């Protein structure tokens, strides 16, 4: 057995062990049903809930919001990063703010966004984008900082215009950093949108979980929770693996 197989085997054994232990504790009543239902029932309820189509609209709502937030974060994050990097004076003023951005609970702006956009999907898209965009900006700037000087000189030698330089030299040379930015923007946007739905929203998975919790409907709550967490973990492994492949291909 290779080391890799051993590692994966042990990891699976641990995960199944935890699930099994929770199952036994729930079945024997050591964990009361009001606190948690057995994992097997969560899967079962999730199956019926998905097959019944009751939550299809909420799933589409949430995923569309996350998609919009990711798109805004990536496009505008890259553009703003390019802009800040090209203006050193602006950068010097903004730098301390960008560096401490993630130490501020962005959620405090959510009520404000509801007032500005109304109780629609747009405050959710906005809070998701606010979460994701700064990671994209920071990684764009970091990537541009690392563009080798020789490449910039060749751009001058070839007399490339400003946008041609950005498109043909700067962005490709900064690609590994940009992909790290994309990875973070994706995870942060997911967190931002679902958290926003949880706080206050008209629809979406986050709202349905909160609604089920408020009405003491543990079966629905745990089924949807399982769905959200599984999706988030899948997305994490997808972007993580993708980033690793890109980094391996890009590294000299």
């Amino acid at each position, binding site marked *: 057995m290779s080391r890799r197989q051993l590692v994966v085997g042990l990891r699976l054994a641990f995960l199944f062990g935890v699930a099994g232990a929770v199952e036994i504790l729930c079945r024997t009543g050591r964990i009361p049903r009001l606190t948690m239902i057995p994992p097997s029932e969560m899967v079962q309820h999730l199956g019926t809930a998905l097959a019944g189509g009751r939550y299809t609209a909420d799933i589409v709502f949430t995923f569309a919001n996350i998609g919009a937030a990711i798109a805004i974060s990536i496009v505008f994050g890259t553009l703003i990063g390019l802009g800040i990097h090209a203006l050193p*004076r602006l950068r010097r003023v903004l730098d301390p703010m960008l560096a401490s951005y993630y130490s501020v609970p962005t959620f*405090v702006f959510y009520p404000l966004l509801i*007032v500005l956009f109304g109780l629609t999907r747009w405050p959710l898209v906005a809070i998701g984008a606010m979460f994701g965009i700064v990671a994209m900006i920071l990684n764009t700037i970091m990537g541009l900082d690392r563009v080798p000087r020789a490449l910039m000189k060749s751009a001058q030698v070839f007399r490339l215009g400003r946008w041609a330089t950005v498109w043909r030299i700067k962005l490709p040379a900064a690609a590994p950093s940009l992909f790290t930015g994309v990875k973070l923007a994706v995870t942060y946007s997911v967190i931002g949108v679902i958290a926003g739905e949880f706080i206050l929203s008209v629809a979406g998975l986050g709202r349905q979980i909160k609604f089920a919790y408020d009405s003491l409907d543990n079966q629905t709550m745990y089924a949807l929770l399982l769905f959200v967490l599984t999706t988030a973990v899948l997305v994490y492994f997808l972007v993580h693996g993708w980033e690793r492949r890109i980094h391996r291909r890009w590294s000299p």
Partner: protein
Amino acid sequence: MTDAEIRGQTPFLEKRVRPLFGRKGSDPFLFGVAFLLLWQGAHELAGEQGLASPWVTVSRAAELIGSAAFWQHAGATGLAFAYALAVALLGGLAIGLTLGYFRLAGDVFEPIVGAIYSIPKITLYPIILLIFGLTLSAKVAFGALHGIFPMIIFTISGVSAVKPVFRKTARTLRLSPLAAIRTVVMPAALPEIFTGFRIGFSLTLLGTLIGELFASDRGLGFMLIRGIEHSDAATILALTLLLFTISALAGWALLRLDRRLRRYQQAAAASH
């Protein structure tokens, strides 16, 4: 990042920049004025109910700071935050050092930790509430749940980046794992561990505040949600401003310490 660092990294752009007006020292001031004008403009657009004006916000913030009730709430938040930070720091350190020191354990558990770090932890709030009820423990658990994972992740990566020669030295001296971690591995990984603490610090604060937002009868998060329920725009914005200032200042101070630690370690490495 210091001015010198930025200058070093952008040699081409620096030459092209011509000050539009004034000297560079006036930039933060100009930026501040532009920000206030934007805020005032947004206030005119959104109206008194939507977005309080800068002046109203600042005077409401001053009023809050002068009131005893505000300090009671701030104290409740501070207490929960302190407990949560202690749990996140000590728990994260213990788990991170173990997983970093024992390679097999690290390989088995690291992806699991990374995956939990990436999930929207706010959705776990119902479970925490079902377990702990509406107590201080629920707030602490929620804060620690946010802060412990970056602490673990950075500690693992710090420990695995420790030079092999250090670990060999520890082995040659026949140190027990505990002694090796305490006297060799942890000091060598300290800058990375501190970065984890810095990120864990802000996430713990975030977690504690979110905890109060949902289920609490005191604390700054509770004040915020009450402001939202009464659509009291001035209080919401004043609290936002205060929280933003406090956490930005704390984040800035920790960042400076972080950079100093790293510079110190680089200097130490260069002198060998």
